[in-house]
């Protein structure tokens, strides 16, 4: 099905199942520990051996010598694979550094060997016996140091120059020119990257933890140099990803290589202390923002330049993207620079670009509002744009940013906000902050297969993944709505590369695109079922487990007969995304307390108001948003991969050193979804929320801290040491 004209009324609009806050259908499995993750496939794989990965001890250089003798002789060892013995490997399409390093070392903890043994304990002990001698070469690990020479990313093709930014900024009555810094962030999903691999002749099956099954199967095949149809990836449950499992990582490759070498199924999980430098991370940014406005607060010039670094052939953190679309302003400059750094590979993490971009932009807007003496919400409202500022003829499909902010202000009690540094609750300085949330709505081709059996049970198969997003449930809701059956008559099977290729989980495109793919398949199935029941498909009504038209009504199971019926289709998107700018919007509201003596920062209240198209399941969508708010709180207050600029690695590479929020950091969170349907997005009229929820949170926290203390911090995370010297005397 090609989606190239705005959606009109369709069966989804019945909202009998869609739009209900349904409990997740995978809940009973997850809460009882019976949902199997990649390392736990006792049900599928007999007698696996255990692989343990050895990582490079330097950031850049060469392996001069590697002595495997002791490790090979260690008890239980079945095989050791290194770059020397792995055979020819190609780099996957989605990898920047090789997953198996050697002799060249591209980054710290790059995998250089896998030791396969009978038991986990034996593999781990043997891995420690591998002796490596390195020749170190100098690397560049300091973004600040290479910033000034960093060239435009992708030759500047995504940069924006509209009007005369420099001139307008120079002439503006009120200006801000400030630089903001966000550090490297770790996904730190709870399930470490893990894979179980098994060869059957030349066929490879990998039970893994991966957000994008088709990309993954393709890259496993490419890396190993085998046909894609010989690779099967299975990933029904994924213990979190946040972008960190978009791509095949060392666990999958080394499980496959180890399995081949040991002639046994092999399972490999990356250890937690290894993950931070071995896998990908969200790159640090330096962002310069310049805003010029008239005295009444109309933005006349807006400039956002951003610098980040990555390994050679890597990509930038596109932190200036949202600034192209979020606010009006006749004269515009957006530029993205990319330096080469020899730190571990930078890549996508939840709302890449916008998450760090809004951490900066939305402080800048707060600073600017203050300079202008205008309420920060009013300042944003004043500079709202209903068109793409670069192409004024291009409208937003939906844009309710103002309503998000105003609804939030009313709900949160924004009017009670006091002047900076003047509100106090005992030992705590208190303050409120706001930020706009913005994230584009991307649509991706997505296919599904739907079966209806003689018992009237609908089974959906698609290689879509559920990374905690609630995919199982919204797909079941979609199929139930389309086929007119209750939810418990729907079976959803996900995450298998033998299923039709879906959008996968990334870029907050998963929910809308994958359910639209299921919609398309169900449309086809409805036609087939109606025809089989002798009913005109154009007049068929699917409800209560039956298909009917006029006086004729047939139970679905009877309609399809003993063999059932199967339909497969995909949703493809035309150019509605070009004609209309599709984005999601929100407003984040945060209240913090800052301890007057110690500077400790604690979040007291959080509210997000989101406008993101039709909300398919308000319960799981709300969870997406509160989870993103939590991650945003972490980015604001504690998360930072600390770079050792001498040795080129992230020093705090475990969950004690890389602090993410715990229960005690997070108050009760409120989420409001504005009533919205977006007929430009898909037949589902839905958009994503999983990334919108993190966009702007950090700045809302930062702005609340400013409101509480009068101290402006432009370098994340905002930790107490950055406030301490400017806090009031302890009396």
């Amino acid at each position: 099905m090609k989606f190239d004209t705005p959606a009109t009324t369709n069966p989804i609009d019945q909202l009998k199942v869609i739009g209900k806050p349904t409990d997740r259908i995978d809940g009973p499995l997850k809460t009882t520990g019976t949902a199997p993750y990649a390392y736990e496939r006792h049900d599928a794989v007999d007698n696996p051996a255990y692989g343990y990965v050895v990582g490079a001890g330097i950031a850049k250089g060469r392996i001069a010598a590697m002595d495997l003798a002791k490790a090979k002789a260690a008890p239980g060892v079945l095989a050791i694979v290194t770059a020397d013995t792995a055979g020819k490997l190609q780099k996957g399409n989605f990898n920047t550094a090789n997953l198996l390093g050697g002799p060249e070392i591209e980054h710290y903890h790059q995998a250089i060997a896998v030791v396969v043994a009978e038991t986990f304990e034996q593999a781990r002990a043997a891995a420690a016996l591998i002796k490596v001698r390195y020749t170190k070469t100098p690397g560049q690990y300091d973004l600040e140091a290479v910033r000034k020479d960093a060239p435009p990313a992708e030759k500047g093709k995504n940069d924006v120059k509209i009007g005369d930014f420099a001139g307008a900024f120079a002439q503006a009555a009120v200006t801000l020119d400030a630089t903001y810094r966000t550090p490297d962030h770790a996904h730190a999903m709870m399930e470490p990257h893990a894979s179980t691999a098994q060869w059957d002749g030349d066929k490879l099956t990998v039970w893994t933890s991966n957000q994008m099954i088709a990309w993954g199967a393709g890259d496993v095949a490419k890396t190993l140099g085998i046909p894609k149809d010989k690779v099967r990836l299975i990933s029904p449950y994924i213990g979190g990803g946040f972008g960190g499992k978009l791509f095949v990582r060392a666990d999958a490759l080394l499980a496959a290589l180890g399995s081949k070498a040991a002639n046994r199924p092999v399972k490999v999980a990356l250890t937690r202390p290894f993950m931070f430098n071995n896998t990908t991370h969200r790159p640090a940014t330096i962002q310069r923002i310049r805003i010029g406005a008239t005295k009444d607060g109309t933005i006349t010039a807006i400039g956002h330049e951003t610098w980040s670094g990555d390994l050679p052939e890597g990509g930038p953190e596109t932190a200036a993207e949202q600034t192209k679309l979020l606010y009006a302003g006749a004269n515009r400059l957006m530029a993205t620079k990319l330096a080469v750094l020899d730190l571990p590979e930078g890549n996508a993490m939840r709302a890449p670009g916008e998450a760090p971009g809004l951490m900066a932009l939305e402080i800048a807007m707060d600073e600017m509002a203050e300079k202008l003496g205008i309420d920060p919400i009013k300042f944003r409202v004043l500079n709202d744009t209903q068109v793409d500022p670069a192409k004024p003829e291009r409208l937003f499909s939906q844009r309710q940013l103002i309503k998000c902010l105003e609804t939030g202000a009313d709900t949160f009690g924004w009017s009670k906000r006091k002047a900076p540094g003047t509100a106090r609750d005992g030992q705590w300085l208190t303050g409120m902050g706001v930020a706009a949330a913005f994230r584009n709505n991307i649509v991706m081709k997505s296919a599904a297969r739907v079966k209806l059996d003689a018992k009237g049970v609908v089974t959906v198969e698609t290689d879509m993944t559920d990374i905690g997003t609630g995919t199982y449930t919204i797909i079941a809701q979609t199929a139930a709505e389309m086929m007119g059956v209750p939810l418990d008559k729907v079976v959803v099977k996900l995450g298998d590369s033998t299923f039709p290729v879906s959008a996968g989980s990334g870029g907050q495109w998963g929910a809308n695109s994958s359910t639209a793919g299921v919609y398309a398949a169900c449309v086809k199935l409805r036609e087939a079922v109606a025809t089989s029941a002798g009913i005109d498909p154009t007049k068929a009504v699917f409800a209560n487990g039956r298909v009917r038209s006029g006086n004729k009504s047939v139970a679905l199971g009877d309609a399809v007969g003993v063999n059932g019926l199967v339909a497969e289709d995909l949703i493809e998107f035309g150019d509605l995304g070009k004609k209309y700018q599709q984005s999601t919007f929100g407003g984040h509201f945060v209240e913090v307390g800052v301890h007057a003596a110690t500077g400790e920062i604690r979040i007291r209240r959080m509210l997000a108001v989101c406008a993101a198209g039709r909300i398919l399941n308000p319960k799981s969508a709300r969870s997406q948003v509160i989870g993103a708010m939590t991650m945003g709180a972490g980015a604001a207050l504690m998360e930072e991969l600390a770079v050792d600029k001498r040795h080129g690695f992230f020093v705090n590479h475990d969950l004690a050193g890389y602090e993410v929020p715990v229960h005690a950091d997070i108050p009760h969170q409120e989420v409001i979804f504005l009533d919205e349907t977006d007929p430009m997005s898909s037949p589902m009229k839905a958009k994503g929320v999983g990334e919108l929820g993190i966009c702007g949170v950090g700045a809302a926290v930062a702005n609340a801290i400013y409101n509480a203390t009068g101290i402006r911090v432009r370098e994340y995370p905002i930790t107490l040491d950055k406030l301490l010297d400017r806090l009031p005397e302890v009396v």
Partner: protein
Amino acid sequence: MRAFTYQRAASPAEAAAAALKTPGAKFIAGGTNLLDLMKLEIETPPHLIDVNGLGLDKIEPTKGGGLRIGALVRNTDLAADAKVRKDYAVLSRALLAGASGQLRNKATTAGNLLQRTRCPYFYDTNQACNKRLPGSGCSAIGGISRQHAVVGASTACIATHPSDMAVAMRLLDAKVETVRPNGQTRVIPIADFHRLPGTTPHIETSLQPGEFITAVTLPKPIGGTHIYTKVRDRASYAFALVSVAAVIQTDGTGRIALGGVAHKPWRVEAAEKELPRGAKAVSAKLFANAVPTPENRFKLTLAERTLAAALLEAKG
């Protein structure tokens, strides 16, 4: 993790003797720090002596009006003990500020005293660390050092002691009771128990080879207002940037000990004499010889301000 042999000890003396017999052997009680380090081969004991069955899990009154805390009393039980809560609240508070509920259920009194540093370079076997590999150097110096010591450190090591409990023990003048492999017992004042790094940061305590902690005793209660303020970025389940243990009497005198600033719980008795003159004066004496790094200089300000807040709190 290296392979090891394992025995369950039948008595403290037997445990101590067994430890001496196998060089590098370790006692294991809660295991929450030892196993963590063994997995990374930072600890590589060839032999483990399980001391959990020794019955050292009681909290009893001493003749002097104090408390004897068995070495194996779990952190949860010590924090929840009615006498500790009433008379040694600073100890209860310190324990409850540390780790997580799960860890406190396993971690023991002796094991907590013997926790090793959380310095990330100590934890990464690719990096130089004099504590882990004497003579290899200290990567934390000139590296990432926000968490590290500001006082009492050396050119060999700037690690901190991670324990909260030990800070309160130091404040309360606890004594460590031990038995040696020859069966002799001794009592080590807590002030002499933990060492500064000097040139031998790998030697962290005054325990002799095989020497086994049987109990920690507390002198009789000293009254006063008990405060334990732990400052950290995360609201819970994090090591201290700075912690302040204080017992303040109604006349303004009292005791102060700090965590998160040194290789051992940091108490300077001379500084306590300055208490009537306020936090600044106390802090000046506590940190007279401080050598912070650029990254952790803030701890000096933080400690003073946290102390000031604690003194305010004590006034009520």
